[in-house]
């Protein structure tokens, strides 16, 4: 399966019958004159977790944020990002609609300064869902999916800011899930959490992959190997290797990848 494109990188591609949730073709990202991401071409298979790993400054977050156009106004992104046959990196795309399909969870929990209930119901309301019972239903189901329901069901009117960091992060996941997205982008979602909260978060993500495609940036190689089905290793703005997680961690093709996953880096 591994097709060695050239000596610089080794990128796994998928047969035509494997459903692809998102594909980037020759994506370049520029911060002013700084060319931060080179020729990123990847396929993200549907209903799987793909981890993006690499050292700080390797371009993981930059790449991830390009996938739902969160870099708009910050960086220039060239190339194609194909979602359901549509290049979402074009001006004609309604980015607000698109972001409901491709949700994002950030490094630090960022609930709104509103109640737990309103954190989820307010974006739904803005989306045009006005039916109260429907909203309550979605609030409950998304909190259950994010494994937060049992901890907060007795007091949904409480301020979201009074929750613990781990709970806040799961609320942010619930909030994204409430939009009924296809894809969830996660930018180091556990980096601000303690080990127990991290464990809970990972359990939640494993459950979610039956219904969602998850792309997760992580600094923790343990997390990537525990959690993900596929792993992409990035180095200095280039995707060096993309393969099944098992292969990346046990039998990498590229020397750079091997050095990184075995801790011989730098």
């Amino acid at each position: 399966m591994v097709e060695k494109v050239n000596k610089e990188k080794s990128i796994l591609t998928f047969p035509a019958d494997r459903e692809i949730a998102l594909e980037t073709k020759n994506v370049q990202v520029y911060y002013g004159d700084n060319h931060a991401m080179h020729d990123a071409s990847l396929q993200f298979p549907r209903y799987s977790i793909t981890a993006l790993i690499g050292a700080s400054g390797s371009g993981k977050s930059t790449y991830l944020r390009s996938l739902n156009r969160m870099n708009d106004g910050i960086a220039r992104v060239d190339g194609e990002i194909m979602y359901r046959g549509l290049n979402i990196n074009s001006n004609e795309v309604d980015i607000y609609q698109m972001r409901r399909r491709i949700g994002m969870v950030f490094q630090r929990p960022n609930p709104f300064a509103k109640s737990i209930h309103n954190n989820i119901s307010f974006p739904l309301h803005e989306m045009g869902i006005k039916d109260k019972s429907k909203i309550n239903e979605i609030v409950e189901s998304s909190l259950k999916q994010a494994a937060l329901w049992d901890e907060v069901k007795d007091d949904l009117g409480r301020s979201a800011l009074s929750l613990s960091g781990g709970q806040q992060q799961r609320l942010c996941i619930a909030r994204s899930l409430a939009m009924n997205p296809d894809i969830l982008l996660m930018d180091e979602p556990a980096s601000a959490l303690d080990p127990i909260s991290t464990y809970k978060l990972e359990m939640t993500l494993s459950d979610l992959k039956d219904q969602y495609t998850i792309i997760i940036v992580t600094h923790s190689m343990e997390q990537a190997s525990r959690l993900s089905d596929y792993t992409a290793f990035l180095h200095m703005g280039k995707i060096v290797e993309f393969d099944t997680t098992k292969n990346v961690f046990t039998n990498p093709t590229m020397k750079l990848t091997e050095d990184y996953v075995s801790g011989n880096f730098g």
Partner: protein
Amino acid sequence: MNAKKADKIATAIIYILVGIVVLILVALLGFILISGLPHVTWSFLTSPASAFSAGGGIGDQLFNSFYLLILTLIISFPISLGAGIYLAEYAKKNWLTDAIRITIEVLSSLPSVVVGLFGFLLFVVQFKLGFSIISGAIALTFFNLPLLTRNIENSLNGVSNLQREAGLSLGLSRWKTVTKVVVPAALPGILTGIILSAGRVFGEAAALIFTAGQSAPMLNYANWNPLSGDSPLNIFRPAETLAVHIWKINTEGIMPDASQVSAGASAVLVVAVLIFNLGARFAGNYIYRKITASK
């Protein structure tokens, strides 16, 4: 001299300097309150001023001050909010927005008497609005706009960028993110700024002498028709405020109890401004607690 000794001396000097500041403030406030409060009675607060005889009150002036304050805030808050949102959320950093910021800076350090004279020439004379509440309110708006705009801009800037990203990532437009996420989160700061600016506006005299005028025509508080001459709600009547009244009594007051009226009015003014300041703290903390639900 060793580090420990130097530290002790520095600490002592800082305490002394702070002590001086506090002492001056307490002495000033104490003097105004002690000499003024004994003259403050219910009838002093509610009866109209008298020009020649003793026993006049400050009822009309007090009403005028609040009325002018409310009008000023009604005019200046929406403008400041719009300008603050533009500067904090939309303005790109270039020469134009730099120029806008410098202009606001300059405007905020403009002496209020200059604002007053400008208002006098433009509204009172040129636009023939005469000495009127509306002229005063517009002059005070000029006086208030830069500070309120800066305050709102700073409050919005204080809201973490994570909040904006949260809104955008959920498919909210930039405008919805600003109005429904960022502004509510900045509300405690914005509210504190409004109340503090209210205190400044309430105590302002120089900008009003030439715009709202120094006369307090007899008002009929039963007349609620805003177009009628003796209605308190009429915005085209001249209106002497409390601060202007204090200035006037002290420069040309000929009533026998001028100094008592002045002391009483000053005490009322100081108490009102104190209430605004304490109110700002209380309201800001209250809303913050309410939002964050922290005990």
